[in-house]
């Protein structure tokens, strides 16, 4: 089948139709929207690179038709492109720096300065010092394994265990499991998920204040998390 011409390529194309098609081709998320979406997926990139999609969509012609002038469509297209460049070059902190999504494997989502306090989603562990495992004889099997990186499957199992305890109505056990998770996976890749379970467990155990504190910290550290709505609902924000 012979490929067809696009309406925009056809000689004598209707000006208004062409303008609408140019407008449709030029649309896209705002620079801030792009940053927010990518951050929420844990694949955020530095602001300087967020406006350079490799989507091979040709941009609209710069020829301004009379209809385009009337509608301002051509200016919308041209200005839209310049806006993206403009926004990505402005030193507008804090939106210039992708919020550090701790525990996500994004190599480029790096905070400008190391946080003084952990920004991990897994916060406020309730483990007491005396509950921590000891290395009395240097051979304790309870100590975190130092050989080899823990697998994602291990993290999944740990969180599932906590969720299972919570589902069974045993919030203290769930919190204990989450403390163990925090110990074994201090930089766990599923720490956001762990924090959501922790908030649920704290609420379930009647500790609304702690749940609120954890939630506030989580929402501050991960405003774009897919769990943000869930967390807000849990604590009634």
């Amino acid at each position, binding site marked *: 089948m012979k490929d067809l011409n696009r*309406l925009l390529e056809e000689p004598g194309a209707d000006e208004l139709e062409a303008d609408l098609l140019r407008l449709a081709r030029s649309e896209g998320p705002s620079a801030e929207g792009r940053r927010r979406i*990518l951050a929420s997926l844990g694949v955020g990139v530095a602001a300087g690179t967020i406006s350079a*999609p490799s989507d091979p969509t040709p941009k609209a012609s710069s020829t301004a038709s009379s209809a385009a002038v009337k509608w301002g469509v051509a200016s919308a297209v041209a200005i839209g492109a310049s806006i993206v460049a403009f926004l990505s070059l402005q030193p507008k902190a804090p939106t210039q720096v992708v919020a550090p999504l701790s525990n996500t494997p994004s190599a480029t989502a790096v905070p400008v300065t190391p946080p003084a306090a952990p920004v991990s989603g897994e916060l406020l562990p309730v483990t007491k010092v005396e509950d921590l495992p000891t290395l009395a004889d240097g051979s304790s099997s309870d100590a975190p394994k130092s050989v080899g990186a823990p697998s994602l499957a291990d993290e999944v199992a740990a969180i599932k265990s906590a969720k299972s305890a919570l589902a069974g109505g045993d919030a203290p056990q769930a919190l204990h499991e989450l403390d163990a998770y925090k110990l074994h996976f201090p930089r766990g890749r599923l720490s956001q998920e762990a924090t959501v379970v922790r908030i649920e467990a704290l609420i379930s155990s009647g500790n609304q204040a702690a749940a609120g504190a954890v939630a506030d910290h989580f929402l501050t550290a991960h405003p774009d998390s897919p769990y943000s709505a869930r967390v807000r*609902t849990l604590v009634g924000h």
Partner: protein
Amino acid sequence: MAWTQTVANDSECEPPPASGVAVSSDLETAEGSADDAGSDLPLEIAVARVQNSDRLRRVATTHLDFVWRCLRRFGVPAADADDAAQQVFLVAAQKLDEVPVDKERSFLFATAARVAANARRSIHRRKRAYDNLAHVPEDPVATQDQLADQLRARALLDQVMESMPEDLRAVFVLFEIEEMSVYEIADAIGIPLGTVGSRLRRARKAFQDAVARYRAKHDFRRGAV
């Protein structure tokens, strides 16, 4: 590919095929996480997001604009398009292992079509002007008149696209806006080449008729002043 049937069957609002890449259940979950904050985001999606992070990063940065535009053209208001795009990529994160690299765009399109269908059902209709207003580019030089023109142009574009049946709209969007070839479209939607051609012709006619209707009404009003 099973996901191509979602558009090929002209039934974005109908239950998805039971076999193959199960986009539907993920959409229900993803949608639930956004629309119903009381539901949980399954651990499986989080795991997939971590496991596929490198590929997801490439896919998301490459195709975000494409997905966003498809959502808009399928009726998702500008104010909701970011959230809907996030849903599309959350589904993609879970399914990327099953999607060949050369089918990523097709998969994303089918997913976007379904997310848009779900969004249309769940989003309360707000005034279009407000939705567009929320997405007016931050134009440092545009005058108020220019901004108003942009708003009206977007409203007209939405109106014209909404007037088009969805099966025609899919072909029109991919061909005229995303500039895919008819071969790519046939593969993406899962329909024969001949059907692509016939739908495209009907879509163009629908598009041109809608613009003509608008022009006639506009000219009539202008003449009446």
